[in-house]
């Protein structure tokens, strides 16, 4: 049972850090285009005889086009049959070489991940399998029906969880008519309406070379990595590049949504439209958020909600930068009768942070956590390939990893404060509270 722990702000201990002074050996990214022009990002890691590869497509739920759940259903069906291989054959081909494969789909991207031993006797069959299910998925009617039923069960599970009910309500309120508003998991009505033709059409338009990027980390030399990339995508049709999703409009006014649920705790989400991955303010906001609620129990939200008042087990905040502006979100859970207190503390903490900005020593400690911890973030092939996948998908610079610490060290307190004030308006927040009995009109919220 993992449990995050505590922290009190205190005297800045003198023995502390020189985080920025430490040399972190950051691996160089090799970059080229595979057959079909697909961009490839590669970091050799020769210590362990294994390979991690990801293929990412702009094929997340933002492409659902009024049919929520379509991107996820299509993605899930890839391993359910390809060419003359049944789902059983595909599973056998991957498992008998000890490969780990997963397909997933969120709002922006669809990701296929493969982990394999580097020995070609194991790697090659695994890569051939993934290439074929990308290129020739069968979308057999019985598989479509079965996976649809699985997704419907998953929706029911979401409906029994106050946390996911809150998430869905928050995105709906935050994004209105934007495609980010709908749940990637779909709705009961939308899932039931999806047809095999919808799925085939979605696959044909999105799983193309023009819409793909590849990230590879592992025990390969350059030419072996080139062969791997080519083997994965050479069968894909060229396709058309897909335009970015529409920009996101800011929240016009504050809104509070209360949803009753037979739970002993209420889940509280408070947030706003944040920033896109390309927004230059992202780094300053990220650094500032590390002070507010992104640095575990050391952050102000945890201090105020958990450490000083014992109101919640976890209280966090985060920006989730996306192709277009992703959300800024604060999140906590508390016993139903403490909702008003917790809500007020969270709002006050955000308002004061936005108005005053962080104090200098606190900002420096947050910065040192980020820069001093960067070596940890990239230690391991599994961690590196996720970084590389994001760099590839969002087209971040090749020296992103090399520059990260320098960028973090270059942000001033004033930049944090002004970026925060440009992007966060504490008087225009979406607040969602799920839990407790239905309120009578006279006890409706109001702060």
């Amino acid at each position: 049972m993992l449990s995050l722990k505590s922290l009190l702000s205190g005297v800045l201990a003198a023995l502390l850090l020189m985080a920025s002074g430490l040399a972190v050996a950051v691996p160089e990214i090799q970059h080229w285009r595979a057959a079909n022009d697909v961009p490839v990002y590669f970091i050799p890691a020769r210590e362990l005889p294994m390979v991690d590869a990801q293929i990412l497509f702009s094929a997340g739920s933002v492409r659902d086009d009024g049919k929520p759940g379509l991107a996820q259903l299509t993605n899930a069906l890839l391993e359910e049959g390809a060419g003359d291989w049944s789902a059983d054959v595909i599973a056998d081909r991957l498992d008998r070489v000890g490969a780990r494969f997963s397909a997933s789909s969120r709002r922006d991207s669809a990701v296929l991940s493969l982990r394999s031993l580097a020995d070609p006797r194991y790697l090659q069959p695994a890569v051939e399998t993934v290439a074929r299910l990308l290129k020739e998925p069968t979308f057999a009617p019985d598989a479509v029906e079965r996976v649809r039923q699985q997704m419907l069960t998953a929706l029911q599970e979401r409906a029994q969880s106050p946390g996911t009910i809150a998430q869905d309500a928050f995105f709906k309120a935050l994004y209105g008519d934007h495609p980010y508003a709908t749940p990637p998991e779909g709705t009961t009505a939308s899932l039931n309406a999806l047809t095999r033709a919808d799925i085939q059409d979605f696959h044909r338009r999105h799983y193309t070379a023009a819409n793909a990027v590849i990230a590879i980390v592992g025990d390969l030399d350059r030419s072996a990595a080139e062969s791997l990339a080519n083997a994965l995508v050479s069968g894909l049709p060229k396709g058309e590049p897909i335009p970015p999703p529409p920009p996101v409009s800011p929240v016009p006014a504050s809104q509070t949504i209360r949803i009753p649920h037979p739970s002993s705790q209420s889940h509280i989400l408070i947030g706003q439209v944040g920033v896109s991955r390309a927004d230059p303010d992202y780094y300053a906001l990220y650094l500032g958020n590390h002070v507010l609620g992104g640095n575990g129990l050391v952050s102000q939200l945890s201090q105020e909600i958990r450490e000083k008042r014992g109101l919640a087990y976890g209280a966090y905040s985060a920006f989730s930068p996306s192709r277009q502006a992703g959300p800024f979100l604060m999140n906590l859970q508390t016993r139903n009768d403490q909702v008003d207190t917790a809500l007020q503390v969270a709002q006050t903490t955000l308002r004061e942070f936005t108005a005053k900005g962080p104090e200098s020593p606190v900002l420096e400690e947050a910065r040192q956590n980020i820069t001093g911890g960067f070596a940890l973030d990239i230690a391991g092939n599994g961690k590196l390939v996720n970084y590389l996948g994001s760099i590839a998908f969002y087209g971040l610079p090749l020296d992103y990893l090399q520059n990260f610490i320098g960028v973090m060290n270059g942000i001033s307190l004033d930049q944090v404060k002004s970026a925060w004030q440009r992007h966060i308006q504490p008087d225009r927040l979406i607040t969602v509270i799920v839990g407790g009995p239905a309120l009578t009109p006279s006890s409706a919220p109001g702060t």
Partner: protein
Amino acid sequence: MCRNRFVALACWLTVSPLVALAATPVHEFILDNGLKILVREDHRAPVVVSQVWYKVGSSYEPSGLTGISHLLEHLMFKGTPNVPGGEFSRLIAANGGDENAFTSHDYTAYFQTLEKERLELSFRLEADRMRHLLLKPEDVAKEAQVVAEERRLRTEDQPEALTQERFQAAAYITSPYRNPIIGWMQDIELIKPDDLRRWYQQWYAPNNATLVVVGDVDPAKVRELAEKHFGPLPTSELTPPRSAVEIPQKGERRITVKTPAEVPYVVLGYKAPTLKTAAEGWEPYALDVLDGVLDGGNSGRISRNLIRGSQVAAAAGTSYSTTSRLEELFTLAGNPAPGRTSAELEQALRAEVAKLREELISPEELARVVAQVTATDVYQQDSLFYQGMRLGTLETVGLGWNKLDDYVQRIQAVTPEQVREVARKYLTDDRLTVAMLDPLPLEGRRPAAPGAAMDHAVR
């Protein structure tokens, strides 16, 4: 392991089987005060993981004090005379570190991940809180509230977790595994500072701990640093709890859990031996192979036969841990597919178990499990944390850190006959407990009318 990518089927806290690492050797030292130190070098990145493992967990707790080990874990961050409350976490964070702690049935462990030059900070702070915790009453009161919120979050409001908790309580009569790690709510609220002080003084001592260090370090220097910080600490007189062996089960047991939910859920558990308790040394390995045959990847029998074949399950999976200190449960659990019932899913799971008792697994299935175990052995070396976790777990449950060094060979040596034998011996109806989640309506879940639930207040 759990199958169905959409349904977050609640699983027990089990990782994939603990697997041997062929990699670098482990250096073992013991200080004069009894602290055992295990060091494994991994020079891939300039990083180190440091973990302190205590031989105490929920299975050591007497009734009325369930959850005391976990509550004490929380309070370990609340300060000593030298390091005020919260300072521990602040120092680690400001040095670019990651930290956390976890409690299990059999252990309580604390860890930091740091840039390698900062290992001493971790040792200094961990040595300090090993013997000098303050345990102020006001901190105890507040932290008990936090743990109560944690329990609401993880158990009370999670229908499947709640079912699992009641399932464990029903499966065991005398074993302390019947109690939840986090404790029963009434105990969490009533534990006194004096209870915690006694618990701390009894178990938190160098002669009841193992220090595990994995990363870009020199073992001799680690030893020197450990001597400096942990060496002066006094020992405790250890009085291990009287062994609480589970009495033999006399027939199948069943419970129903009624709680607001949407999706039915069924759990089946058979009493099964672990590496500590097995009559024959090979039995847990045969059970691990059996586990892989049922649920090792999408080609396992559960995915193939129950999710894809008969489509009786929307999600299903198994769970079994060979490294528990006491007798364990081999469990199968799942959600019936829409239109199918929990009873049908239970029958289908029992039919799969019956097949294992009656027929030999195929050579292809055995080869597939061996291939997966062999590959996993390599993949797990990618994580420093996992490497430390394995050493710490094995040492702390009393198996010795090198118990699974030959894991791959032991799995390779398992025969189809042995798999059938453990199925016949352990996966029998008289050793079985079944729990069913019976969903009550989620009344009041949906807002009555759009206007009533929406409000443009907050200012």
